[in-house]
């Protein structure tokens, strides 16, 4: 019985964590799975809007410049149903983003993992969009 409940919890969480949050476009329509990116920076803005949540991160480069990365996350309705809200990330938060860069070479990324400086993972942004898994 105990095993069953524990299994149920484990499975439910796995399904929950992997549940899709995007239907708007396929991963390959915009992003390149051979261009993984990882950067750390400060959030400058969050658009909690359809069809995708976007947040922008100022990242300092080695030569002292600042690049403002546009990061695509899941759909706000789907994220809200999973308990997230627009205050889950705020301007000024330090975040580490792992994802994949846009094929067009702009500083645009599909964010697959978003971690705040205190270690909290935000948005669990896995989307069943044909892209790489987290």
């Amino acid at each position: 019985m105990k095993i069953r409940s524990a299994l149920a919890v484990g499975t439910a969480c796995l399904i929950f964590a992997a549940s899709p949050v995007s239907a708007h476009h396929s991963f390959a329509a915009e992003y390149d799975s051979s261009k993984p990116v990882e950067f750390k920076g400060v959030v400058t803005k969050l658009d909690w809007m359809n069809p995708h949540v976007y947040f922008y991160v100022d990242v300092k480069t080695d030569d002292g410049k600042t690049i403002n990365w546009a990061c695509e996350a899941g759909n706000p309705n789907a994220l809200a149903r999973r308990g997230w809200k627009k205050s889950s990330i705020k301007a000024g938060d330090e975040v580490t983003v792992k994802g994949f860069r846009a094929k067009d070479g702009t500083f645009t990324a599909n964010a697959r993992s978003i971690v705040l400086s205190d270690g909290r993972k935000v948005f669990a942004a896995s989307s069943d969009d044909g892209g790489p898994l987290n």
Partner: protein
Amino acid sequence: MMAVLSTERKMTRILLSIVTAFGALCCASLPAFGQAGENATLPLPPNPPPPGKGIPDLNGVWVMPYTPDLARPLKAPIPFTPFGAEMFKNHVGGDDPHGFCQPTGPTRAFHSPFPFQIVQTAGMLTVLFEIDHNFRRIFTDGRSHPKDLDSTWYGDSVGSYEGGSLTVDTIGLSDRSWLDTAGHQHSDKLHITEKFTRTGPDTFLWTVTYDDPVYFTRPWSVSLTARREKYDIMEMICMDNNQDIPHYITSQPKR
């Protein structure tokens, strides 16, 4: 015997701790329950009774499993004509009309990740889709399709209640929508049949059949189970902030 039992118990304990740890790890990345914005937890709208005897009650807010690729539940190759196969092979993901917030067509909205509300009234069934804040009407008053239909994104849908199910027939579709995110397309000869059958207190089975002699050598069907949602539908306006458009790798002219 004792040794076997004891080994089994040990295995059970190990398995239990692995599974529990795994569950806890997965859950740790989720926010505390009840933090969501209230839009996500609004109570369900009132459900009127079905509008007649023998009519299955489809009223309510439902969601189907997100199915970005219809070949997955089909579990068999899609029966393409040579033209259909060529079109699928050469499709460009960035051409997806919905990527540009164009309409889903009559069925793709059902198997998107977004819920929908069904409202049954005498002579008509209305589907209010969360995706694109969009609707569909299915006439159940016994009318036939109009004779000379211009092709449209959603076509013309008529339905009838037979044997405890709702059967819906749709024609008059333009070739502009895609059937799914994976890039399955169709012509304006597409004829869609859908069957809605209640299978439990909180479920109904939706079976859709696509018949298009330009793209497919024979009709093919997919069945998905819709389950009742806990909360109301929300607003989803696709053009609210579609930042993706300038970044698509597309054969369409730049917008």
